[in-house]
């Protein structure tokens, strides 16, 4: 190997101060604000369940702890030189597959599914981590194929990479995460500049495959949720009940909301999984339309900072990683909020930052950390 003195000079020239200037403080701020809203909702949830918010085992105390872990993960990912990820792509991919296999083998879940793995007193949902890991793997793969991205082989290669983890998530079964993985793939291919003709052709093929998926892939309860969405509510229980109660909660919030911890729908336990999947309904009832708008605004500016970082990146990895992360967040917000307000069927997709769930928060923190790692390792900020 030839020594590269320029590198040392470069590194020394890039003082901590320069790195700090390249660091995107806005992005951190928006993420922290969203995380704080998540903590507030966890607090509300604990209080409404009649618990001491800080007692051990409450939603709030666990959320505090996971926030701490997320901050550590974020800092670690920021400090970690993302270039190493290119080398580590394959091991990361294999570890990801391994964790998903492990989840299927020893995981716990509701109704016979296997989604969580217990680590000591905590549970961790590795399918959440899989989202970030697959963004890394795809970003490395597509980045290496720069220049050949409009070929069909790039698209097929990316798809092939996605198939094993996607299938493993699907058999858990976790329809929500598998949809997020698919959206990540689609978003990254689109942003990478992949051939639109082929993408459209593949999308058409997927639509054609829907009847097959309906028959062979979807579980009964998943079908029920979807049919409940498209047919008028007849069942006063089950999915229909959830959506109806959720809409009632949102509507009763009005413009300014009922005030924190005053949501009758959540206090009376009318809302299903109100600390996770339906947390936005509680938020909309208690903080009202204005509170929900603030959340939307924070997500929008956060996405803007992620996309800006992606654009600014000097290498395709940063661009693609940012595109994948932005797609994942946007898709999850859309599907989750759409579900809560009755626009989309019920799928178990958590609302980033706000829904209670350690794995989701830590995974997003890692993703944002990688973005910052990309930011501070550019020569200069472009804007």
């Amino acid at each position: 190997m030839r020594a590269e003195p320029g590198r040392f000079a470069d590194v020394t020239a890039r003082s901590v101060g320069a790195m700090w200037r390249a660091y995107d403080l806005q992005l951190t701020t928006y993420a922290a604000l969203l995380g704080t809203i998540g903590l507030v909702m966890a607090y509300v949830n604990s209080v409404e369940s009649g618990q001491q918010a800080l007692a051990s085992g409450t939603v709030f105390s666990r959320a505090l702890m996971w926030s701490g872990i997320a901050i550590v993960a974020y800092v670690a990912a920021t400090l970690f030189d993302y270039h190493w990820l290119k080398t580590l792509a394959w091991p990361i991919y294999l570890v990801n597959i391994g964790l998903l296999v492990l989840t299927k083998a020893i995981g716990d879940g509701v109704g016979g599914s296997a989604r969580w793995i217990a680590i000591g007193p905590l549970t961790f949902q590795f399918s959440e981590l899989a989202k970030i890991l697959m963004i890394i793997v795809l970003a490395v793969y597509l980045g290496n194929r720069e220049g050949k991205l409009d070929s069909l082989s790039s698209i097929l290669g990316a798809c092939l990479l996605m198939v094993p983890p996607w299938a493993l998530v699907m058999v858990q079964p976790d329809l929500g995460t598998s949809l997020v993985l698919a959206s990540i793939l689609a978003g990254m291919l689109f942003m990478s500049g992949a051939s639109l003709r082929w993408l459209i052709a593949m999308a058409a093929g997927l639509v054609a495959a829907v009847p097959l998926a309906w028959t062979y892939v979807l579980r009964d309860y998943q079908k029920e949720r979807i049919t409940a969405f498209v047919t008028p509510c007849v069942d006063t229980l089950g999915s229909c009940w959830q959506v109806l109660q959720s809409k009632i909660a949102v509507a009763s919030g009005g413009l300014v909301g009922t005030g924190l911890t005053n949501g009758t729908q959540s206090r009376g336990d009318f809302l299903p999984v109100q600390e996770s999947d339906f947390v936005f309904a509680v938020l909309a009832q208690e903080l009202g339309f204005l509170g929900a708008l603030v959340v939307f605004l924070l997500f929008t500016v956060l996405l803007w900072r992620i996309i800006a970082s992606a654009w600014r990146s000097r290498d395709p990895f940063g661009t693609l990683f940012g595109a994948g992360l932005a797609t994942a967040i946007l898709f999850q917000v859309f599907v989750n909020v759409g579900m809560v307000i009755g626009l989309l069927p019920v799928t178990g997709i958590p609302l980033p930052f706000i829904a209670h769930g350690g794995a989701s928060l830590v995974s997003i923190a890692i993703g944002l950390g990688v973005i910052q790692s990309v930011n501070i390792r550019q020569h200069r900020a472009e804007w």
Partner: protein
Amino acid sequence: MNDSYLTPRPERDRRPLRFLTFGIVTILIFGLLASRLAYLQINNGPALAARAEANRTAEEAIPAPRGLIYDRQGRPLVTNVASFAVKITPSDLPFDQRTDVADRLGYLLGLDPSTILETLDTAPGSRFDPVRIAQDVPEDTARLVSESSDQLPGVSVVVETRRAYPAGPLMAQILGYTGPVDAASLDKLKADGYLPDDMIGKAGVEATFESQLRGTYGSELVERDATGKDVQVLRTTQQAVSGASLTLTIDETIQKDAQAALKWGMRVAGLKRGVFIVMNPQTGEVLAMVSLPTYDDNLFAKGISVKDFQKLATDKNEPLTNQAVQAHFPPGSTFKLVTGTGGLQDRKITPQTRLQTRAYLTLGSTRFYDWNHAGFGLCNIFCGFGHSSDTFFYQVAGMLGADRLAYWARQFGFGAPTGIDLPGEVSGIIPSNAWKMNAFGQPMFQGEVYQAGIGQGYDVVTPIQLINAYAALANGGKLYRPQLVREITGPDGAVIQSFKPDLIRKLPVSQATLRTMRLAARKVVTLRHTYNLVDMPIKVAAKSGTAEYGLRDSKGRLPFHSWFVGFVPKDPYHGSFANPDSQLVFLAFAYDSRTIGNAATEIAKDFLQRYFHIKKDYRLPVLLRRGNFYGH
């Protein structure tokens, strides 16, 4: 290695159009979500917010305390006591835990788990309505069930009031009992505010006076969570109003005397069923009404077990049937009141008319025997009624004919319910030519008219009809509706309804005829047809009856019931039956009493000794020996 960051490539294609597209899509998505949110929260808010309120709150009924029941002296016959009930709300019980919960609960309550599941499955109302599984649960058990609530989803323990009947079997046939409302009745009663797990009067005056006793349920607005558990009461929207209380015409002391007399006679004679009724003929008030065998209505109040209920329901002596009003029997010779009154009033005979009585009358080749195979010679109404001569009344019945006889029977209240305040009253049968044409396609034969004239054949009457007919004789021809309630009092103590005699009809019979029949009834006693009854210090006019029924035994004899119905004048020691002033009419009925003498008469004597505190014992237990009245 291609360290791209060392060799910056600003010319790298970053597809600005696609970044722009992403930005537009982002804004479109948030725009869509925000506008939908605005539609829901601002446009549609109030309507759905009302649903959130409806979700959260529910109107719940406040049960009203049920009215109490007293005897005519104010002695409590029914009280309300607090008790624990265990209920299951089906919607809160996950289907896959049903059997587990039924097993656990069955173990705690000592119930068969399959019974619990069956109760759940057959319960009226929706899945959200609690179903009563057990009532009157002991406090220890109730506490145990409450404490195991996390293993018993959907199970709740509630405090409710239940009925208690201090006198138990003594009054059960009159008071009846309350029980859970059944699905069929619930549909009709829902509009009146009945709840699926409500209690309702099922028998006796508990059933007849249900609407007065129940009161008006109140309601309150409660805050609920999604599992339907009450979080708090927000406000009372309507106060519950207690049910009205009843004061019965029944006198518990007289009821006890009547029951003791009937029990004594039935025990000595080895009888299975009997009735004793006491009334005031001047008003139609029922002072006592005993039907044996009886049951303990507290069993029902505590929630009767299927086993106990089956035992009562299948008992061939029908303890759940009030034999005084819900069953009918041939009246036998007591019916001669109708034949005699009809004969006199239709002027077929006069009080002086003497008819030849003999061992039997012949009709074609059929002989119609007198009970006394010697006959009584030439007999007027006093002799005929006094000796209860069958051949005398065959002839009178023959003169009247089937339809006139039926007319007079109906005038006395036979063949129709009396309208007493008890459920399930039967009509009895009074045969007429029209009735027989309808039933058998033929008119009444002359022999059947003879039979009808002595209360045999097709005639059947209820004990309450019979005593009411004699009450009309005793009071000078006023047929009153027998009544059980003296007074209905509101929860504030104000009288809502007080007793007034309810005249069914004035008999179209002259006072002279009634006087004749009363004196004839007195003859029954003075001619010693009823043995030593005449020796008692009180004056009694009466008629006994021996009513054959069923199938002949190996010696060609029929089983029979015995009747005794009588009355005493206002002054029982010195009064005269010429006056219609009697204040006491009583009836004894002994079912299937194959005794040497008339068992009902001995029972009546026992009652009179108790009622008038007569120290000397006039009863003749020898007459209650097993035998056949006709055999001697």
